[in-house]
């Protein structure tokens, strides 16, 4: 890896984050909506707040959130905040800060999403490789591929609904909702808490794994068919290498690169990628928070979550750019010359 390559990629990383952050700032403003006024309208309509009260509140909160300042000034403040990862107060949850909300809700979602992504990926890749391998009996493919085709096309939340209905509601085998038992307090240092969290995470993880793993498997199966026809695969077999050595070292490994790119992108959505599933299981996590922020036009919460999301994606892509040549020696850090 060359220093100039590294520097270029870091520069590109910052460029992506800055561009995305700017779009993130501009788009909500283009909508021409006033989040403070909308909140007050809802309050007037839903609780009989008086006009005088609402006007005073609008004045105060517009000033408090800096929405009375010129747009360029708001933008500069915003970019500064992005750099410090300090997005100020949430409009709808005032006086809670955006970062407080992101951390306290994100930590409920993150563990189960990470686990489900890695289980889905590992299981899906191995299954797909096995199904695409020319030594796998045909009846296995006939048996496994059709259900996988169905599962990969079904939204995760639908699987979640089915699991909730049968496993949690009817059979009462696992909890229906919540990130952990509501007789416990959140304590990530306690094994009992971890066990409670894990038990509650089984159904959400299963909802994601059943769908995601099928997707990974179908993709990997197609890749295996491609690499099996390559000269190096034929040569490896001709050399008399063991079947499993050919499978793992020559076929699976060479077919792995596109799925790994997909994994990096998937990891970029780690914060909000399970929004519907977490919502159905009442995790009160970041995905549903993002939905709420969009619906209520909570500028600052929206800025915070989207910026973190963009950073995750940019960082994941950056890491993949860095490690591609380490995973596959055919890829070089040096620029291609014509």
């Amino acid at each position, binding site marked *: *890896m*060359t220093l100039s390559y*590294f520097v270029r990629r870091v520069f590109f990383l910052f460029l992506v984050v800055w561009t995305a952050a700017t779009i993130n700032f501009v788009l909500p403003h283009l909508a021409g*909506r006033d989040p403070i*006024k909308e*909140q*007050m*309208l*809802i*309050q*007037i*309509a*839903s*609780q*009989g*707040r*008086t*006009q005088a*009260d*609402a006007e*005073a*509140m609008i*004045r*105060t*909160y517009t000033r408090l959130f800096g929405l009375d300042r010129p747009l360029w000034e708001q933008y500069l403040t915003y970019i500064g905040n992005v750099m410090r990862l300090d997005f100020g107060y949430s409009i*709808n*949850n*005032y*006086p*809670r800060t955006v970062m407080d909300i992101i951390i*306290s*809700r994100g*930590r409920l979602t*993150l563990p189960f999403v990470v686990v489900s992504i890695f289980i889905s990926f590992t299981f899906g890749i191995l299954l797909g490789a096995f199904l695409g391998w020319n030594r796998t009996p045909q009846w296995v493919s006939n048996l496994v591929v059709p259900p996988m085709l169905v599962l990969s096309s079904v939204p995760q939340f639908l699987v979640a609904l089915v699991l909730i209905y049968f496993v*949690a*509601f009817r059979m*009462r085998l696992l909890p*229906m*909702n919540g*990130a952990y*038992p*509501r*007789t*416990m*307090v*959140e*304590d*990530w240092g*306690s094994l*009992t*808490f971890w066990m409670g969290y894990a038990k509650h995470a089984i159904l959400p993880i299963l909802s994601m794994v059943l769908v995601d793993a099928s997707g990974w498997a179908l993709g990997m199966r197609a890749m295996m068919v491609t690499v099996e026809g390559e000269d190096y695969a034929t040569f490896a077999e001709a050399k008399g290498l063991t079947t499993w050595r050919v499978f793992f070292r020559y076929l699976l490994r060479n077919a792995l690169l596109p799925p790994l790119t997909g994994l990096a992108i998937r990891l970029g959505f780690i914060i909000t990628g399970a929004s519907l599933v977490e*919502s*159905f299981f*009442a995790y*009160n996590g970041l995905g549903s928070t993002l939905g709420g922020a*969009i619906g209520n*036009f909570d500028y600052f919460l929206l800025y915070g979550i989207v910026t973190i999301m963009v950073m995750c994606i940019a960082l994941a892509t950056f890491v993949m750019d860095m*490690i591609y040549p*380490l995973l596959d*020696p055919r890829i070089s850090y040096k620029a291609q010359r014509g």
Partner: protein
Amino acid sequence: MSNISRRDFLRVSTTAVAGALLAACGAPATEAPKVEPTAKPAEEKPAATATPKGPVRPVDAWPVGELPRNRTLIYYNNTPPNGNFALWGADPHQAGWAICQEPAAFYGVHGDKQYMWLAESYKYADDGKGLTVVFRKGIKWSDGTPFTANDVVWSMDTLKRVDGLQKAGNVKATVEKAEAVDDLTLKLTFNQVDWRFFFTSMTFRFDLGDNTLIQPKHYWSTVADDKLREDKFYDPAKGLPISTSPYGVGVSNEQYTNYDLRKSWWAVETGFVDKEPDVWRIQQQPFTNDTLAAQLLINKEIDHPLDLRPFVVASTLAQADHLSTWTGRKPPYGYVDWWPISVQFCTKKPPFDNPKVRWAVAYALNQQAIVDIGWSGAGTVAMSPFPAYPKLNALLDQIKDVTDKYNVLEFNLEKSAALMTEAGFTKDGEGFWVDKDGVRPDADVYAGVPLFGDIAPVVAEQLRQAGFYSQHKAPPDVWAAKVDGRASMFLFGHGGATIDPFDTLQLYQEANAAPMGEQSWGNITRWDDPEFAKARQEIKNTAPDDPKMVELFKKTMEIWYAALPDCPIVQWYHRIPVSNWYFTNWPDETNPYMNSALWHWTMLQVVLGLKATGNA
């Protein structure tokens, strides 16, 4: 940069990823002592009728640890506040922590009953420009400090002094001076006549109004004015939030908030109430969706959800004998909320700037069919912008000549067509109304889901049948569409007359009726009328029980009906299935001591009425 071998990279990266994951998930966030999960509930047993002898309530530790499920009331509500009890800054509407507040009085409209609470009595000045309130002896804050009238004076002065605090409107607009005559007596001087102040600003009813939240002066006077809004007022170890309520906050996080019964309560100590509540803990959990709420109710995992759609309620009741609603197990499954729904018009936008067109819409609507199709009959129609409450019904009965003359419930397509023709419209080849330029007027019905998802399509279809080119629209910014005038017609309710019509009439204020091009968020129909404004002002200056009220009411409603800024369609219902497994004596139509919504300011009264069954 030196080369890194692939094997080294894979080893190091695997270790790093594992370490990072552990670190990310390993940050402890302990907020209260650890407690073990409660035991799984045993098999069903018949409900006991009397409060059983149960385990002794642990009172020495705060926050309280584990408590039995059969003394824990679980309500499935809006997002728990997670430590945000910022009384002055956070929007307290339906936030769930109303249980921590006690007002001067409560009011339950269905039983038409006022419960004098912190206050013992009140009396208006003869000219309506003042109010004297006498509080009970022996009231104490949760930290033991005596409650006095000075706390109320300080709360009101703060609302007047500091801009932009929650629930400041009435006090700012009306109170000239608040003074404590002695520890128990509050004297208010108003800058205008106000016969409703005690009701609108000191009485909890539903989730309405600018109730002054009476706060402990000894705590808040130590906080700088500019920090009032930001103070979250939460620290269980220090007993925050301080209140006079029997319930304090034990644990509050993203998953739930526990409101636990405190060791002592002034009302029991003074003999004002007989005994401490049967409910030892109220746990607020975040609401997800109707389906999950129904499943949790059936499995006895929650006791009280938000209000559900009629079809869901019917199906839920059919699957569990331990559930009931306000009307038992029969429709409409709920009580009338203060929010009657109308088809509202943007009255400054053609063609709905013409009252004839508005009445043409009214004649095109069949309200009973809306109830029958949209709610499967589980509801009632509305013939005015007022909720069907005893005192308002009595007033409406006295202006029957007006409501008969302007009968919005009349479904008459011929009259509708005649009015449209008079307004200059003709029908095109497909049978839709067009103006003189051949353009179909915008008649889309804006209405958010899920609130209106069941009735809005019926309304739109009825309008199509009458020749209006209409469809139901529910964009994500449906609220904004009403305010900025994009929506020509929309479904919406009226906030919040309960015992007297003034609160609803003041929705149509001329000062808030913005012209097109501006957001009109105070008066969303943008309708105003100088004669109506004059009559409304007279109502404001008249006591609700003054005999003059009927004549004034008639005058305003005659103007309102003739103009018809919105067309009433249905009464709004709260359909809340409740579980009788762990707690009984929920309020219902036979025992309407309070409306049963626990997300309302009145939740303390509901909780005090509950009786533990002792069921496991």
